C-alpha cells in the first residue's frame, strides 16, 4: 500500500532560474517545436471535448481538467503568440496572454502527472490532432524551465551521469556475470565486434533480471552473434519522457555509436515502450540522415525468429488475454507481431474489450509510474484495465513492456488483485522447444 499521502497538486522546481527566466526558457523552447505538423494540429482544435472520452485519466475520474487537449492549453497559447500565422497580430492586440509562472507550475501536474503520452486521445480526435506528440513536445519547454517532477529530475541527473537510470556503465559486466550465473545463460559483454547490439530496460538490470536472461536464452538459441556493451546498454531513454532533448540525444547516440563501433547491423531494444519511441522513430533525427543500423523491438525480434524457424516454442494451450503497450502497438505498429508470437505460444487469445490500437493504457507510461505524485490517480486508472481483464475470464495475462508490467503489478498489489502479469519474452524463453 503506498503510504505516501496524496499530496496536494503542488509542483517541483529544479535549478536556480528566476521565475521570469523559467517562463522565457519555456517560451523559447515552445517556439522551436512548431513545424508544419505541430502548427497544423494546434490550429485545428475545435474544442469538441471528445479527447476526454478516450483518456483513461478522465474516464477513471470524470474530472474535466484531465481533458487531453486542455493539457495543451499553455502550449496552445504559446503557439498563437509566437508561431501562428497571426502571431504578430495576436501579440499586438494582446489577444492571447503568455503563460505565467504560476500557470506553468500548476500545469506540471497535467503534463507529467496525468498524461502517459499513450496517444489514445490521438485516435479519437475528429480533427486527427496527435495530442500525445504535442504533450511530449510541451515537456521540452517544461524541462527547459526546470519544472518537472523531482523524482523524474533525479532519474534525469542519474542518466546524465551513468547513461542509465539504473546502473553506471562500469557495473554492467558484474551485473551481467551475476545474471548469467543465476540463470545459467551466457551473456556476452563488451565484445569488439558483433552482429547485434542488445540493450536492456533499467528494470531488467534490477529486479526483472529474468527478462534479461530470457533474452539471452533466445538469442543464443537463435545463434545470433550478439553482445551488450557498456557504451550503450540502457534503451529506456528517460530524456524522451522528461523532455530533456540533450539527454535524449546523448542516450540515443551512445547506443547507435556503440553499435556502429562494434560493426553491429542491428540494435535490439528490450520489452520497453518509450525505448521503442525514442530509438525506432527518433534516433535518425539526431544524425540528420537514415541510420546504418536496423533498430527492432524484442516483440519484432521474437516474431521474426519464430517466423524464420530459428527458434521454436512448445504450445502452452491455455486461454490468455494481451495488454497492448501504447508505444509499441498504438504508436509503434506491432499489434500483429505481438499476436503472432502469442499464437505461436499456443495461447487461445481472448481480446480485451478495448485492445489493439484503441486499447486502454496501463496508466504508468511516460514517466507517470516513476512520478510518485501521480500514484493515487494511477490506481484509479488501474481499475479500468483490471475490469476488462477479469471480463475476459482468460487464465493468463501477458504483455510485452517492462514499464506496463511494473505499473500493473503496483496496481494489482494496491487493489489486492492476484493475477500475475507475464512477459511475452519470458514465456517464449521458458517454452523454447528443442
Amino acid at each position, binding site marked *: 500500500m503506498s503510504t505516501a499521502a496524496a499530496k496536494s497538486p503542488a509542483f517541483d522546481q529544479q535549478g536556480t532560474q528566476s521565475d521570469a527566466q523559467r517562463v522565457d526558457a519555456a517560451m523559447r523552447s515552445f517556439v522551436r517545436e512548431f513545424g508544419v505538423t505541430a502548427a*497544423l494540429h494546434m490550429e*485545428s482544435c475545435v474544442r469538441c471535448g471528445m479527447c476526454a472520452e478516450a483518456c483513461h485519466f478522465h474516464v477513471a475520474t470524470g474530472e474535466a481538467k484531465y481533458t487531453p487537449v*486542455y493539457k495543451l492549453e499553455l502550449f496552445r497559447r504559446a503557439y498563437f503568440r509566437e508561431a501562428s500565422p497571426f502571431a504578430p497580430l495576436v501579440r499586438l492586440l494582446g489577444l492571447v496572454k503568455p503563460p505565467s509562472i504560476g500557470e506553468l507550475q500548476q500545469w506540471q501536474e497535467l503534463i507529467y502527472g496525468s498524461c502517459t503520452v499513450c496517444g489514445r486521445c490521438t485516435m479519437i480526435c475528429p*480533427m*486527427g490532432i496527435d495530442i500525445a506528440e504535442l504533450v511530449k513536445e510541451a515537456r521540452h519547454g517544461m524541462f527547459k524551465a526546470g519544472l518537472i517532477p523531482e523524482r523524474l529530475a533525479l532519474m534525469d541527473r542519474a542518466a546524465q551521469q551513468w547513461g542509465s537510470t539504473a546502473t553506471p556503465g562500469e557495473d554492467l559486466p558484474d551485473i551481467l556475470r551475476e545474471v548469467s550465473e543465476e540463470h545459467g545463460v551466457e551473456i556476452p559483454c563488451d565484445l569488439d565486434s558483433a552482429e547485434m547490439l542488445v540493450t536492456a530496460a533499467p528494470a531488467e538490470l534490477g529486479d526483472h533480471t529474468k527478462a534479461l536472461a530470457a533474452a539471452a536464452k533466445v538469442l543464443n538459441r537463435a545463434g545470433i552473434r550478439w553482445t551488450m556493451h557498456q557504451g550503450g546498454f540502457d534503451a529506456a531513454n528517460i530524456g524522451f519522457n522528461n523532455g530533456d532533448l540533450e539527454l535524449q540525444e546523448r542516450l540515443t547516440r551512445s547506443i547507435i555509436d556503440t553499435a556502429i563501433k562494434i560493426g553491429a547491423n542491428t540494435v535490439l531494444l528490450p520489452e520497453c515502450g518509450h525505448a521503442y519511441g525514442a530509438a525506432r522513430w527518433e534516433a535518425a533525427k539526431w544524425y540528420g540522415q537514415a541510420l546504418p543500423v536496423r533498430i527492432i523491438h524484442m516483440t519484432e525480434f521474437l516474431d521474426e525468429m519464430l517466423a524464420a524457424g530459428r527458434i521454436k516454442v512448445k504450445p502452452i494451450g491455455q486461454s490468455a488475454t494481451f495488454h497492448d503497450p501504447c508505444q509499441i502497438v498504438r504508436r509503434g505498429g506491432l499489434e500483429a507481431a505481438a499476436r503472432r508470437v502469442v499464437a505461436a505460444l499456443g495461447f487461445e487469445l481472448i481480446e480485451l474489450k478495448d485492445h489493439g*490500437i*484503441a486499447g486502454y493504457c496501463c496508466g504508468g507510461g511516460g514517466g507517470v509510474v516513476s512520478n510518485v505524485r501521480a500514484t493515487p490517480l494511477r490506481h484509479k486508472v488501474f481499475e479500468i484495465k483490471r475490469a476488462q481483464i477479469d471480463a475476459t475470464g482468460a487464465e493468463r495475462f501477458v504483455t510485452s513492456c517492462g514499464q506496463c508490467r511494473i505499473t500493473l503489478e503496483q496496481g494489482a498489489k494496491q487493489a489486492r488483485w492476484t493475477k500475475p502479469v507475464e512477459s511475452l519474452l519470458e514465456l517464449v524463453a521458458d517454452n523454447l522447444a528443442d
Partner: protein
Amino acid sequence: MDLLDFARGPALTFAGAVFVLGTLWRLSGVLLLPRLRDLSPPREGAPAPWRGALGTVLRRMWPRREFLDRTMFSTVNSYVFHIGLAVTVFGLAPHILFIRNFSGLSWPALPSNVVFAVGVITLVSLFAALARRLTHPVLKLLSHTGDYLSWALTTLPVLTGLLATAHLGARYETLLALHILSIAAFLIWFPFGKLMHAFLFVFSRGATGVRFSHRGVKA
C-alpha cells in the same frame, strides 16, 4: 432598399476579400512552416505517405467502435448540423445562383420547402450543440469566446435565412439584407476562428495519417 444594396454590394465584396485573404494567409502561414521530416525507416509494407494521409482523413469521418458509445451525441449531432448546413447552402436554388454568379458552377436545386425543413432541423441541432457546450463540464472548461463567436456567426445565417424564407418579422428585403450581412460577418470571422477547421481538418488528419502509416498503424 439601401440596406440590401449595401449588403449585396460592398459588404459582400469586402467580406469575400477578407475571407480569401485571411484563409490563404492562415493556410500558407501554416503550410510554409519548416517541415520536420521523419528520417526513420518506415514499417515494411507501409503504404505511401499520401495513401496513409488519405486513409486517416477518411477514417476520422466516423469514430472507432470503441469510442462510439461515449461520443454518440457529439458525433450524431455534429453530422446533423454539418449535413444540414451543406444541404441548405448547396441545395437551395438562390444559393446555387449565388455560387454560379461568381464561380460559374451550377447544379439542379432541391425543392425550397424541403431545404426549409432541413434548415429548421439544422437550427435545432446547432442550439443543441450550444446547450451541450454550455453545460458539459469538459466543454465548459475548454471553450473560449472564439468558440461562441464561431457558433453565433454560423447560426445567425441559418436563422436569418429561415426568417427571410418564411418572410417573418420584417419586410422581405430587410430580412434578405440581414441574411446577406450575417453571411458577410460569417465570412469575415471565418479565417480567424475555428471555422478554419473546414480547410485545416484535411491537412491535420493527413499529417497524423502520414506519421502513423509510416509506423504501420491505421490511425
